[in-house]
């Protein structure tokens, strides 16, 4: 049995904005994602060329080799606009704060064996710099990409990566009693340690990539698959065997986040690869190039941290997952 409150109904003269109706094929009620995303980027009649790079327009389709008839054929599968994005992250963060208090109150990180505590300092904490690199790359992706549906997933991801760098840093502060010494040491590893150098080099090389779509593949598809596989699967499992389950609690945000992140990142490859054989070949080549580079760059660090055998098993699992994701995106590797 339902209750019906009578209200006065005024017949609307139109159901949504004209550009949205055109994309939906009819004037029908639209979602907030659609009204807040479609065609909000200017496309025509720019007044001036950038003084910082006069070879391009302010918004320019030619900043990637990927060609799309209409960039709005890509839509975030999560349907995030600012409101739904911040509300989703604040919920995740609320759970994360509970985990931080739980671990802190009971000094749970203390129970990790000394050897593995060192490993947290050596392997886990320098990842805050990797995440900061991912913040820069996703800002760049958002800056240079075309169309609001693509650009906005980039700036959301950029802010996410800053947030994750801060969560990792807070684990360091929990370990060093807020002195910051663990973070200084982690930075030294990032800057000087031999096993970290191929990784830092790869990240810095990615900063200067010309093609923003290649940058997306390098950062959000290839490098992240390896970092998230090694850290939140392999390392997480290994440390759990050394009384490190508390770290798993603090990793929860990143685990949930990456499961969600893959949705938009993979879908962008899928939509663009489906557009043309040229796109598909370009994307497939970039994936091949960057996953090979990323695996090579991370191998010394993975071996040093996990041992050769465990590292090999981790890469096998990561590659199997990447193959599956690439196939689902319609790529040919």
């Amino acid at each position, binding site marked *: 049995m339902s209750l019906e409150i009578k209200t006065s109904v005024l017949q609307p003269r139109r159901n949504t904005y004209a550009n949205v109706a055109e994309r939906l094929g009819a004037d029908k009620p639209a979602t907030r994602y659609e009204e807040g995303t479609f065609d909000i980027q200017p496309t025509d*009649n720019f007044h001036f060329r950038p003084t910082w790079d006069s070879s391009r327009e302010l918004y320019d389709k030619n900043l990637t080799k990927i060609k799309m008839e209409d960039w709005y054929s890509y839509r975030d599968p999560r349907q995030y606009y600012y409101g739904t994005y*911040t509300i989703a992250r604040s919920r995740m963060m609320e759970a994360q704060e509970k985990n931080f208090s739980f671990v802190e109150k009971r000094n749970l990180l203390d129970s990790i064996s000394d050897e593995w505590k060192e490993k947290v300092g050596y392997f886990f904490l320098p990842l805050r710099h990797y995440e900061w690199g991912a913040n820069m790359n996703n800002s760049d992706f958002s800056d240079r990409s075309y169309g609001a549906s693509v650009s906005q997933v980039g700036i959301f991801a950029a802010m996410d990566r800053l947030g994750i760098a801060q969560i990792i840093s807070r684990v360091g502060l929990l370990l060093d009693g807020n002195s910051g010494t663990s973070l200084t040491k982690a930075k030294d590893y990032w800057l000087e340690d031999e096993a970290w150098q191929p990784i830092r080099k790869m990240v810095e090389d990615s*900063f200067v990539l010309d093609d923003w779509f290649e940058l997306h593949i390098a950062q959000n598809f290839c490098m992240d698959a390896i970092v998230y596989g090694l850290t939140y699967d392999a390392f997480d499992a290994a440390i759990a065997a050394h009384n490190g389950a508390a770290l798993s609690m603090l990793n929860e945000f990143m685990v949930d986040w990456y499961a969600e992140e893959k949705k938009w990142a993979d879908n962008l490859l899928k939509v663009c690869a489906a557009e043309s054989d040229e796109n598909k070949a370009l994307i497939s080549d970039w994936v091949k190039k960057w996953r090979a580079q990323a695996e090579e760059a991370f191998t010394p660090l993975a071996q040093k941290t996990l041992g050769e055998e465990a590292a090999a098993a981790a890469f096998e699992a990561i590659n199997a997952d990447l193959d599956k994701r690439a196939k689902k995106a319609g790529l040919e590797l």
Partner: protein
Amino acid sequence: MAVNKKKRMGIKERYSLLTRGLGWDTTYQPEEKVYPYDKYEGIIIHDWDEWEDPFRLTMDAYWKFQAEKERKLYAVIDSFAQNNGHLGITDARYINAIKIFLTGVSPLEYAAARGFTHVGRHFGGVGARVACQMQAIDELRHVQTQLHSMSHYNKYFDGLHNRGHMHDRVWYLSVPKSFFDDAMTAGPFEFLTAISFSFEYVLTNLLFVPFMSGAAFNGDMATVTFGFSAQSDEARHMTLGLGVIKFMLEQDERNVPIVQHWIDKWFWRGYRFLSLVAMMMDYMLPKRIMSWKEAWEIYFEDAGTSLFEDLGRYGIKLPKFHDIPAKEKDRLSHEVWSIFYNYTHAAAFHTWVPNEDEMQWLDSKYPDTFNKYYRPRYDHWQAEKDAGNRFYNQTLPMLCQTCQIPMGFTEPDDPTTICFRSSEHNGETYHFCSDGCKNIFDHEPEKYVQAWLPVHQIYQGNCGGASVEDVLEWYKLNKSVDNMDYDGSPDQKLWEQWQADRAKAAS
């Protein structure tokens, strides 16, 4: 490594560890390649570590505060739509202010999002990048919440249906668009001087506040709720604006003349853009907040002067031409409204002759000019209209090469003579509405000759055809619906119908 006993940590130190500490100096790639854009403007930065963070928000706090605000805002937007909130506004003429806002200002919020994303990647300093990224995502919030708040109005009123298409094409919308294109195509330091300092810090009380106060005075609960919700974002953005100016000035004294020129330029650019707001305040709000003249006196002449006194210790002076608006304040809104009255057949909003009450209000606010110069003009237009000759100007106006406003402004010292200025560049003559706009052009002619001037483009055949009809079609403007006088418009008819139905229901 034992887990250490917890030390108390100050917010500043903690924030520094959680943000500044994340960055590093690249060694595998040279700095010039990683940050290729932050040197060519000539601004000298010795030490980015001296950047004072304008606000210390880590992402956990950012998500939490912003999500709370979003929850509240969308609850109001939902209830506004459910309860036919559009019936609560003072008069349907008010919606024309919203039309200007949605087509002229909301697209700038998106431009700001992209502009701040650009500089948020490209500044050499971590602190500056983080502050700009947060502003980038805030600006995305603003464009989206505006589209969502005004979506309900679009369902019941005309002229709101094709904001993006119009913003890229319609003649008067090239004024705000070229303003922001100008800022975004400038270098990162000029962008922040233009938007964060000149616009958000110095002039925001003359843009954002009049629209939001206008909404509050005129029963527009959707817009006013958005405005309240954005207030704390704006406060952060203003802090960034002042912060970046002080940072540049403190880093090296050679920065002072560069910054002074940018302040001169963007003060004038911003002021010309605000003439749309002047018209909105004096003519389009059925219930008025204050006059443009009063707003200028309070928010620039008083507040701005004390700001520049404070910046005087760095050698910064009041913007060049700052005294011109004081001379123009008695006529600015009347001149602009007259331009739109002339060309409202080519605009996506309605205009009208003010009624007698409104003329009396205008006279009380502008005792030296209104009855002398403008009332006779309105009386004449009204008489023409009553005789069935509502005046629409069929000749396209000359536009100022810099601000792109039709050249209808008068000489600073003579309100009865149109002001014309011109400059020669590579054998061509370029025309300006004022010394301020000419000065800007003369400093960077190679930039401003590129301007996409709507009238030139129409005459060159790039806007759908040769007749007004063709151009309106190209604008995707619904003829005799979105444009023309308010009197007789579908908006007016429906509004009166709704009022009559409500009166009937109440009796």
